[in-house]
């Protein structure tokens, strides 16, 4: 177990390094984008004097490395800096955007795991038969539809035609929990593709596992079908799915802009899109830190889960 512990520490250190690298890269790329926050703010009034004045007010006239170092020094004290555009702390941007994103991601994952695994197991049990074909073709079909198109379709049918659900969450702000009906369609859209990929992975893993010598051996011992499937085959089938799940959660925590824009949910994706468009570098960097760290932690978690499910696969830093 101490091997695992030192591996975890090494992975975390490596993750910190990776996050720092991501932040540096993001800073460099944002700087490399044409135009800066002053130019964007000046918009269709690109009066050179005004741009210069805005630039000065934003302290954009200071060298890039100084601004980066200042920001990094603040970060060490837990200070994410202030937005160039509004002068408000970046931490409020992150906190405000994180609520809706976390809520959507949490609900989606809570529904995703049972549905995805359930469908996968169901299909595997009926491999090659009607149920399997139905599940497989449906998941493949849904997977092929982009979120935006799927969202528009659902809104048209369930909100505008049938009037069962509200078409957007406009005006609800962060109080999404107070309007659960507004969450149904976004969560369904978010679920649509991950459920399909998860179900297909679990199905394939189950079929492989059920065909494997060790399950055959267990069967010869006379273990019941249920125990075979759920105690022996399923853990092996879920191991690859755990990696996929980590990637999905990461994707969800990044704020899925398509869904946020379509349903007017002001999550992290919206914050990121706005910040990049406005060249609001401190906000972009703050988001890069959050996204970097969550990716590192999630992947680490996924590896640990895989390790527990299939110990003999071993771990490697």
């Amino acid at each position, binding site marked *: 177990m101490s091997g695992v512990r030192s591996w975890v520490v090494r992975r975390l250190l490596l993750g910190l390094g990776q996050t720092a690298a991501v932040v540096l890269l993001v800073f460099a790329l944002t700087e490399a984008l*044409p135009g800066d926050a002053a130019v*964007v703010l000046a918009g*269709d009034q690109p009066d050179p004097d005004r741009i210069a004045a805005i630039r000065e007010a934003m302290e954009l006239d200071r060298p890039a490395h100084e601004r980066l170092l200042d920001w990094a020094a603040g970060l060490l004290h837990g200070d994410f800096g202030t937005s160039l555009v*509004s002068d408000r702390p970046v931490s409020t941007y992150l906190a405000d955007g994180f609520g809706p994103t976390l809520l959507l991601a949490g609900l989606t994952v809570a529904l995703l795991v049972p549905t995805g695994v359930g469908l996968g197991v169901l299909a595997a049990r009926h491999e090659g038969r009607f149920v399997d074909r139905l599940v497989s073709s449906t998941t493949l079909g849904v997977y092929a539809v982009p979120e*935006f198109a799927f969202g528009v379709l659902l809104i048209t049918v369930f909100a505008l035609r049938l*009037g069962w659900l509200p078409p957007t969450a406009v005006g609800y702000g962060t109080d999404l929990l107070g309007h659960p009906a507004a969450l149904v369609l976004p969560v369904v859209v978010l679920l649509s593709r991950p459920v399909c990929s998860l179900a297909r992975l679990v199905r394939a893993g189950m079929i492989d596992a059920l065909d494997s010598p060790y399950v055959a051996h267990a069967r010869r011992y006379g273990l019941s079908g249920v125990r075979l499937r759920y105690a022996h085959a399923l853990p092996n089938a879920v191991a690859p799915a755990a990696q996929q799940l980590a990637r999905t959660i990461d994707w969800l925590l990044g704020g899925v802009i398509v869904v946020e824009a379509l349903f007017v949910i002001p999550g992290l994706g*919206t914050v990121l899109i706005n*910040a990049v*468009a406005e060249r609001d570098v401190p906000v972009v960097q703050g988001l890069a830190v959050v996204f970097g760290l969550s990716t590192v932690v999630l992947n680490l978690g996924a590896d640990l889960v895989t390790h527990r499910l299939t110990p003999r696969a071993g771990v490697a830093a």
Partner: protein
Amino acid sequence: MHKTRASAPVASRFPELRRRGFLAAAGGVAGVGALTLAGCTGGSASSEAAAEEDGKPRRGGRLRAAFAGGGAGETLDPHLSSLFSDVARAKALFDKLADYGPDLSAQPRLAASWESDAGLKRWTVTLREAEFHDGRPVTAEDVLYSYRRIADPEQAFRAKASLEPIDLEASRALDARTVEFVLKRPTAEFPNVLAAFGAYIVPEGPQDFDTKPVGSGPFRFISFAPGRSAVFARNDAYWEGAPHLDELEIVVANEESARINALLGGQVEYAHELNPTTARAHEGKGRIEIVRLRNSAMQAFVMKTDRPPFDDQRVREAFFLIADRRELVDGALSGAGEVGNDLFGKGYEYYAADLPQREQDLDRARALLKEAGAENLKVTLDTSPVASGFTEAATIFRDQAAEAGVTITVKTGSKDSYWKDILDSGTFASYRSGAMPIEAHISQRLLTDSTTNATKWQHEDFDALYRQAQSTQDKEERAAVYARMQRRLHAEGGFLIWGFGDWIIGTARTVRGVASKAPANSLDWARFDKVWLA
């Protein structure tokens, strides 16, 4: 059109930059119809007309209006307004001294009247009796404080350039409700300065606009969540009469499809900025009402007149003649607009409507190009998805030019820095403008020292004509000078203005009193104190 954009890659999903493209300041020097307007009373003809058509206003209710917004960086500081949503919130909470009527002439608001001395350099503005939300009266000192705040050299407020003609050091309060403005030069159109984009009057002294803004506007502040929603309540003490609505909520929905869906689903009663295709789909179907604000968005190409090939007047004229304006309006604006005549401000005060409408004439265009030695001309057209219709118009014009033997290469640039990129570089580019007085268009874009002179139209004699207009008291004489300037621009200017787009608004069927003769940015546009719910 909307669908393709909406499903395009992430980059095209921030309408705020398209929107930012549409904000129009009435910057520069300015003012129209000064003396003749002195003493006019407030209130706008068109909103009252709309009210009559719709029957007797009913009091009460809450209206939710969806606008595209600026994200978590939004503020209620009215002097920082730049997006349409900013202005909608600012005009609920604050007033300007004047604002633009349907023809973009300045109408008195907090100013009850104005008059100038014979030299047009000293203006006396009398304030009407009005009070801020905290009960304090609006005074001359508040006006001077507001303007000095905007003009602060340390800041970069948008209206600063518009207030440039005022010598704020020398200007003073004559009494509590009289301000004397001293100007740096004769400015016949000074009332345009008072109506300038973002020139709102705030009470003297520092205030926290985002938590407790105090203005003199028709609505009082209740709550504000940047990038999400702002809630306001009726100001019963409003000088022009209390609004009909109990409450107004301005919500942010950046995606056009979200705004129309929220309207159709009954989540909002007013949706700002809809696509022409959406409008066509719902117009006359009885589910929602579509309001088209004509003459809101000028659509053009700019030719840089100081460099080849456009330094030759014949080439510019040939390009004027290449454009099939109807095809451009139908193709790039989905028919939601009208054709332009290479002049800014169709339907506005001083517009030279008597000049003949230019039509496509490819033979004449070819002959002119030949005369100029510019056969087989190759030109690069800079464009960007920064405003709707830009890239469509560019490809349509490319095909039209090909018929006259001109090869146009369309180059699509970054939308975030587009306006700066085309200001000094390139030769030929897509361009648009929101509504502003014709005089402001000239002062901002067509004088030697204009800050955004994208056509590089720099002529001493033209500058002199502008100064002459600004020093002419008599309105008719002034109109004659503007007519001369427009004739010249029509004949040989650098703006190929092919159309004027409608600004499209959707409302629930219960909403009444929404003015339709109100170009975006004018007084009656996004004006919720005259709106009521039937």
